[in-house]
């Protein structure tokens, strides 16, 4: 049996229509789009977490960009595991701190930079730490830099109003331990920020 060009064209069209209207495919695609939209809006509303972690755990602008990049990638890869049993910010903190503290990063200049898609409206370099002489936040960053890696995480979480229970869940240490450490950190920071007292 010979097929004409027209037959083939019709067959392709049927196949295409079937693919487009396949309900399972459509549902999967819809779910994917929903997942992407949810992820992006969660990322946008919690972008300050990523920026602050990058400022605290990396020391050059390039390293900070790399860290933000890695965090975004890991957040996307881990997003299907987010079941909503904790706040999205808590979950973002957990993944971000794991990336910042537990993974080794290799400098790769050819890497695609997700950071380029973060548009800063006032044109400033968002990853730069504010000046310590002109703002108390800058001074705080300077003092946080002197803390140990784990203590940096504790103070970041405390400053972002996380409860002891949440800090303990994110870091995997007991509540008592969080409380003891936090008191020590506060004392240390107080001394550093007010050396004359």
């Amino acid at each position: 049996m010979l097929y004409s060009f027209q037959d083939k064209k019709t067959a392709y069209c049927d196949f295409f229509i079937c693919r487009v209207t396949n309900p399972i495919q459509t549902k999967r695609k819809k779910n994917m789009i929903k997942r992407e939209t949810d992820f992006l809006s969660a990322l946008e509303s919690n972008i300050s977490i990523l920026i602050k972690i990058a400022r605290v755990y990396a020391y050059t602008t390039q390293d900070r960009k790399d860290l933000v990049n890695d965090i975004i990638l890991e957040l996307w890869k881990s997003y299907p595991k987010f079941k909503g049993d904790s706040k999205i910010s808590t979950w973002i903190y957990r993944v971000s701190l794991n990336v910042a503290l537990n993974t080794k990063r290799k400098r790769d200049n050819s890497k695609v930079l997700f950071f380029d898609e973060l548009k800063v409206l006032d044109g400033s370099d968002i990853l730069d730490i504010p000046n310590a002489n002109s703002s108390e936040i800058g001074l705080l960053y300077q003092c946080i830099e002197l803390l140990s890696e784990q203590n940096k995480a504790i103070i970041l979480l405390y400053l972002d109003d996380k409860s002891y229970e949440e800090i303990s869940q994110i870091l995997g240490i007991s509540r008592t331990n969080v409380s003891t450490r936090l008191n020590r950190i506060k004392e240390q920071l107080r001394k550093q920020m007010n050396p004359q007292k």
Partner: protein
Amino acid sequence: MELDAIKNSWKQENLQIAANVQLNKSALMEKINKETSWMKKKNLLVLLFRIPFPVIILILLFTNIQIRNIFNFYVGLGLFLGFASFTLWGLIGYYLKLRILDLTESYLENKKKISELELFKLKMTKRNYCSSPVGIAGIFLMINMPLFTTTEGAIMLLLIMTIMAISIFVNLRYILPAQFKRLNKEMEEIRKLEEEG
């Protein structure tokens, strides 16, 4: 300057960052999808290259070999396959353990798993170093090299053995113990942190 007072400025800065940063959502998602699909391909390629490496050696041997001594050949084959299975078993075990890592778990839990994984990899390297002479002997026996009957053969054997002995000595005496020490220290710190509180 009290830390609790700074907390307000910190929260204010969070809001400022969130208001100042806008995501180019479609471009970002496109980049993320591109990167994840590239990473999947890259990982598969690495795995495909690493796992069948002994098979490639065997194919090369079989295509160029003229079996002169059947007994030596089978003993050599047995030794080489034994060594290859041993290294492959370790490699597969490592990749299986690697899959358990989950960045959505707590920081301490992840740190513990990563340290255990590094320890496993180090032990695997040590075992591979110790058993590598078996694999080399297997190859020599299979190709029935005239190692002891000619001067050239003896010199070649001597050179190979010297380089191998130096490499194994340096690794087992200096490099691996230093890494073991660092990892054991890390594990000890994790244990302490878990016991605290």
